């Protein structure tokens, strides 16, 4: 498994556990129940699940941004689970993140120039300010953004522009691994398509490995090679997209796929797969 | 669930009280110079000083002094006031009711006036009425009780002398009140002559204390109401045929009170603190007025007693606010 880049084994995360002298006692709700997941180099892996499935928490745990209460995370052979902050910094450059809400993920008081050039200087990807500026301008041509944006503040740009700035911030650091957390939900079909095509192009050109989190199976199918299906903090099924979508083994996955309304006339769809409402009710209260 | 929240609140309150006790004890001990020297009246003999030192155990270690001091407080022995030559607790209990009546009257007026302004400002928020309320409220927020008190004294006391400038009751009215709670007692015993006179004395100090609180309530409650009015559930209620007033009172108010309570609590403690200067301006015989004299006369036991009383009031107010939060916010109750 030489080409495995990110590997997580038996991860558990508990929110709100009251910590007594470092040991987390009982209490608090367990959000992830023993997750095993791996992502190989240059591979795009989907993580899909409905709200409350824990997919976002898993994503942040993979990047070491959320403390894991049990299990370990390995990035390119290094166990980063309990690394101190200072020792994880060099690795940070190689694993980046793109956010769902372009408005709140860019610092409102920083100019776009500062948001994009500072990380390059911090990690030494660029030798000096001029080098950083050149890299950013070259990248702007690639993602069709006018370089006059550099002097603007985030709230002076459109939603689509801000989303591309978010992608640029991650890609400019030339990482090996990118986490995309629900980056297209809430966008119109057209802008969604533009953004996903841009991202697919970049991952191919830069040979990035990507974990793509979404609640939308159709988006997952058109972007990812493999997919993990999650429900209530556990993985119910995983495999190549072609296998999962044509012959799903797990009942919940079937339910999830069948629940997607397709833009074609399908009279039977509405009444197919009547799961007993009791289970739905019990599960959700 | 509520019991657990209460228990947690009690422990933090105990912690705060302990902290307050330590601060008061230390504050009065770090005073430059010998604490006793501060406490003795001029011309006291050497033996008096020795007695005082022994009484406060000043010869023992700081810790034992603190222990001794705490014990005495638990037994209600706050020491003897130097300037008044009377038991501190007794004096406090005698004058506290006057201040409490003043503060409660101010609170009632502030809640009524501030609440009404907030509701009216919300209903007509898109008209000139709304803008006018905002502008006037902006000014009110800037005027502290100190400025109000002096402005009233100037206007009602001098230029248009309608109200008495000082005191709590005209000696001529002949109170004949038994309890120190004159205002409440005169009402209960239907002594309207006394009640009227008391009220005339109370108008200016109550207004001076309550207007700043009313301005805060009006501003905070109106912002919370307007935010609630923008929610879908108010739109649905409107579609059910509710009148604008009922929309505000039934739909928005229940959710707007929660956030407003916290700020009103803090602001009310400032109001109680404000009695120190407001009572002084109107020579109103409450504990606030007495506090300034205590400080000027360096009457340490009395100062200690006053600071503790104020602290207890503040902590009680904060606890009351937390309990009310539980009442008004079902989500907190169910956790």
């Amino acid at each position, binding site marked *: 498994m030489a080409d495995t880049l990110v590997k997580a084994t038996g991860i558990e995360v508990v929110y709100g556990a009251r910590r007594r002298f470092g040991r987390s006692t009982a209490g608090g709700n367990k959000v992830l129940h023993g997750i095993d997941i791996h992502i190989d180099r240059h591979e795009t892996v989907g993580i899909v699940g409905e709200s409350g499935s824990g997919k976002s928490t898993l994503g942040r745990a993979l990047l070491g941004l959320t403390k894991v209460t049990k299990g370990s995370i390995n990035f390119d052979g290094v166990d980063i689970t309990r690394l101190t902050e200072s020792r994880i910094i060099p690795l940070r450059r190689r694993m980046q993140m793109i956010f769902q809400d372009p408005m709140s993920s860019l610092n409102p008081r920083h100019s776009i120039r500062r948001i994009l050039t500072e990380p390059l200087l911090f990690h030494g990807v660029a030798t000096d300010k001029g080098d950083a500026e050149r890299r950013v301008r070259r990248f702007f041509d690639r993602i069709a953004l006018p370089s006059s944006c550099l002097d603007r503040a985030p709230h002076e740009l459109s939603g689509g522009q801000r989303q591309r700035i978010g992608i640029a911030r991650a890609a400019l650091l030339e990482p090996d691994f990118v986490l995309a957390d629900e980056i297209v939900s809430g966008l119109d079909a057209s802008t969604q398509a533009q953004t996903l095509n841009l991202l697919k192009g970049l991952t191919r050109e830069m040979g990035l490995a990507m974990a793509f989190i979404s609640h939308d199976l159709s988006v997952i199918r058109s972007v990812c090679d493999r997919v993990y299906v999650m429900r209530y903090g556990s993985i119910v099924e995983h495999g190549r997209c072609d296998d999962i979508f044509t012959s799903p083994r797990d009942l919940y996955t079937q339910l999830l796929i069948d629940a997607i309304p397709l833009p074609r006339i399908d009279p039977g769809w509405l009444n197919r797969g009547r799961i007993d409402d009791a289970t739905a009710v019990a599960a959700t209260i | 669930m509520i019991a657990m929240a209460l228990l947690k609140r009690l422990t933090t309150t105990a912690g705060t009280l302990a902290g307050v006790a330590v601060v008061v004890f230390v504050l009065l001990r770090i005073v430059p110079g010998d604490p006793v020297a501060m406490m003795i009246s001029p011309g006291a003999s050497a033996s008096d000083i020795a007695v005082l030192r022994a009484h406060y155990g000043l010869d023992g270690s700081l810790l034992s002094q603190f222990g001794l001091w705490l014990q005495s407080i638990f037994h209600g022995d706050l020491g003897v006031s130097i300037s008044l030559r009377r038991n501190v607790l007794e004096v406090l209990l005698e004058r506290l009711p006057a201040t409490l009546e003043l503060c409660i009257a101010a609170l009632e007026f502030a809640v009524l006036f501030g609440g009404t302004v907030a509701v009216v400002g919300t209903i007509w928020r898109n008209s000139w009425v709304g803008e006018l309320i905002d502008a006037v409220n902006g000014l009110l927020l800037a005027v502290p009780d100190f400025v109000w008190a002096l402005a009233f004294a100037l206007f009602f006391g001098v230029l248009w002398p309608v109200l008495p400038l000082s005191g709590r009751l005209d000696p001529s009215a002949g109170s004949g009140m038994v309890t120190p709670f004159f205002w409440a007692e005169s009402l209960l015993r239907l002594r309207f002559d006394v009640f009227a006179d008391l009220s005339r004395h109370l108008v200016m100090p109550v207004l001076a204390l309550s207007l700043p609180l009313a301005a805060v309530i009006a501003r905070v409650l109106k912002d919370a109401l307007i935010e609630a009015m923008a929610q879908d559930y108010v739109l*649905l209620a409107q579609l059910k045929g509710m009148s604008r007033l009922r929309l505000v009172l039934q739909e928005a108010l229940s959710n707007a009170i929660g956030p407003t309570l916290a700020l009103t609590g803090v602001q009310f403690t400032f109001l109680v603190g404000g009695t120190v200067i407001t009572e002084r301006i109107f020579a109103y015989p409450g504990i606030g007025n007495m506090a300034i004299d205590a400080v000027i006369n360096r009457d340490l036991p009395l100062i200690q007693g006053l600071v503790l009383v104020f602290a207890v009031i503040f902590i009680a107010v904060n606890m009351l606010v937390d309990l009310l939060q539980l009442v008004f916010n079902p989500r907190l109750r169910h956790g």
Partner: protein
Amino acid sequence: MTNSILSISDLSARSELDHRLILRGVSIGVAPGETMGLVGESGAGKSTIAKALLGILPRTVRITSGRIVFDGRDLRNLPERELNQIFGDQIALIPQDPLTALNPGRRIEGQLTDGLRLRRNLPWRQARLRALELLDEVQIRDPERVMRAFPHELSGGMRQRILIAAAFALEPKLIIADEPTTALDVTVQKQVLRLMRHLQASHHTAIVFVTHDIGVVAQICDRVTLLFEGRVVESGTTAEILAAPKQPYTKALIAAGPRYDRPETGLQPVPDSVINMLRADIIASDGRSSNG
């Protein structure tokens, strides 16, 4: 549209803030008991139409021309008193976000019975019984407990069912469903869509279903009206629109969304050429109407 319950003709609306046209001569007809889909990307004007039908247009939006005939009466020149009998009574709303559409500070019972008591002045006991029936009808297992519950104790799907029950409570002739399932998980969405279709059949209520998801339209709507920046691009039965769309924009919009059953075809953004052609047409017609 001879026996239509709702007939909007040539409706135009303008924003007071920047004086731009939001609706440009929209005409839509809805038959009793029929579900009409209003589809379009954000900014197409579908939500403005929905608000106009409920009389809750924001103060800054003004209808400049056109007629809205509901149940034979033109809403634009009815007295205020009569309009109040229609909005929220004969025309009801199913809102989008169940999290903000129920009052967090009040139990469910009050929010369900208010409409019955205010609009039908049912006594308190009778309104409570009717509310329990409604909860049963929307397949809620334990109506008594739900009546006493506060919104934060219930799931999103459960809350949306309650809102649907509230909408059908007054037996309206027309329901405006404003993106009712957008905020829900896809499994919950399917249950809610199934419930709406079932209730529509038993109450034969017309529904104007506003959404940006063409998949949902395909499964739930009898007819569809596609909007682009305030103008009707195409309108017809769902089968016609999906099988043989006449306008290039319609074809492009259907193809834009990703599809799990045909991964290679999806992700084609609407080409700029199609958008520019539409816009040129709009500017031309704006020119005609403003000096016409």
